[in-house]
């Protein structure tokens, strides 16, 4: 081995620098004329280095997020090292804004979230429609630190702000015939370049749809998130409202939701429709069931600090949220992956 891996516990100061402080410093440096060719090469958010990046506009107007009021809730991820915010907001899978990981932050900053309309309908007594402001005022917001495990074998630790999905479902009063919950992302090709053609959106048949069994949806860990790192969500992370199901692979946590429908049949889900042998309906994090093209036994935890600080750790069943195991007691999870 040529390099020693730095333990991520020994993060250096600049790796955990708060975004505001970081930007302030950059501004100072800029004023001093210090950020010259070097930073152009290092194009801060765009990862691919290439001569063409030298011309990209670094100061493109960023989507404005605002601070939220919330209470903190302990979880078993509370002691994990948080992924720095610039990583969690600069490296995303959101094909509506392009298939590369840096596309979403690049192509989403002018995304319009207000007005917004989220409806809860289907097999419910009292359908609900929430406008933009309602998303933040209808329920008490909690900060919950969750691990996010991507099916691509990397993971992050993110402080989400939001409320249990169960709250809103209870409010809508599900009928006894309701067995599943389906979700749908906004479909608006004008705003979402990835939806304009199959070529820009990675072959996905938009709108993106996801689904949960009703008991999964009612599990208190399952949350609708309206913010992260103390503020409202940026578009690349699913503004203004998204699902977070911490014991399932990331693609289940659908973004920018406009519709939640309670149904009696298992709803189709985007990735399962695209490749059923690779992505199942359940998609529970499971180190024992490999993706056909990569092992799921371990994962790379993204904490910041460059190549040498990347940690490989064991992947835990249900991503370490053992309390959900009882939902799947009698199921063969290698069959229902």
């Amino acid at each position: 081995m040529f390099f020693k891996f730095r333990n991520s516990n020994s993060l250096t100061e600049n790796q955990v620098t708060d975004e505001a402080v970081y930007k302030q410093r950059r501004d100072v440096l800029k004023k001093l004329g210090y950020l010259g060719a070097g930073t152009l090469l290092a194009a801060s958010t765009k990862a691919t280095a290439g001569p063409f990046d030298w011309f990209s506009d670094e100061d493109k107007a960023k989507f404005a997020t605002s601070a939220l009021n919330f209470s903190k809730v302990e979880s078993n991820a509370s002691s994990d090292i948080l992924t720095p915010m610039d990583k969690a907001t600069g490296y995303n899978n959101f094909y509506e804004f392009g298939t590369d990981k840096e596309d979403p932050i690049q192509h989403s900053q002018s995304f319009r979230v207000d007005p917004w309309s989220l409806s809860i309908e289907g097999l419910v007594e009292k359908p609900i429609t929430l406008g933009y402001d309602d998303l933040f005022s209808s329920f008490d917001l909690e900060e919950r630190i969750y691990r996010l495990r991507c099916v691509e074998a990397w993971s992050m630790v993110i402080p989400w702000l939001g409320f249990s999905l169960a709250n809103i479902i209870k409010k809508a009063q599900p009928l006894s015939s309701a067995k599943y919950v389906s979700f749908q992302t906004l479909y608006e090709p004008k705003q979402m370049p990835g939806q304009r053609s199959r070529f820009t959106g990675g072959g996905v048949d938009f709108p993106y749809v996801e689904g949960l069994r009703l008991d999964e949806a009612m599990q208190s860990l399952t949350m609708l998130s309206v913010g992260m790192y103390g503020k409202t969500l940026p578009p690349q992370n699913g503004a203004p409202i998204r699902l977070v199901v911490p014991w399932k692979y990331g693609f289940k946590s659908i973004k920018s939701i406009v519709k939640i429908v309670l149904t009696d049949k298992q709803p189709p889900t985007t990735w399962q429709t695209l490749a059923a042998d690779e992505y199942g309906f359940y998609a529970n994090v499971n180190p024992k069931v490999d993706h056909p093209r990569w092992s799921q036994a371990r994962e790379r935890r993204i904490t910041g600090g460059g190549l040498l600080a990347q940690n490989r750790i064991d992947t835990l069943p249900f991503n370490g949220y053992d309390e959900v195991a009882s939902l799947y007691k009698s199921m063969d999870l290698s069959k229902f992956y």
Partner: protein
Amino acid sequence: MLKINKPIRANPAFMKVARLLAHVVIFGWLGIVFYQGFSDQLGGDPVQTLLDFTGIGALNLLVISLIISPLAMSFKFTQLLPFRRPVGLYSALYGLSHFYVFIAFELQFEMQLIFAEIIKRPYITVGFVTLIILIVLAVTSVNRIKKRMGTTWFTLHSLAYVAVVLAGLHYLWLVKSAWYEPAIYLIFSVCLLFLRRDKIKKIFK
């Protein structure tokens, strides 16, 4: 194939500068991106970015090294030919860096897993075979070895065409759903093979 009668001749000094520039850009670029990786300037997941950069780099360089001959022939621009070897060598270097990123940073030297992945995942097996070919070609490109091998050298180095097709296949196999780019590479490789069909036929005679 397009034929141009008047040969192109550039000022030798210009060609020298062009070669130097090619070295600086290809090697420098790799160096800069690795530097950015170590200093955490490669976005959310430096490992993935570096893996993709070196993979695409190796493939692009391989394709370029194979286009040089047809270009030189159509335009009667023989001064291009000396670019073939360095570009091919850099393709091997990028390929090696790609493999190194994979074992050092992606799998972080979990030896058992490295072997298991190479054997178990067809797209990685294919990548591995491609890399072996590139290394063999790089090693045998030394002048002394080349002379000693005689005509077998040309037969051996036709494996570059096999490598480009395998690399395209590796790429096509690994994408989650956006298959267009790898498909373009594959179609392009097949076109290259078609351009060189006479040469290939000779080998199989």
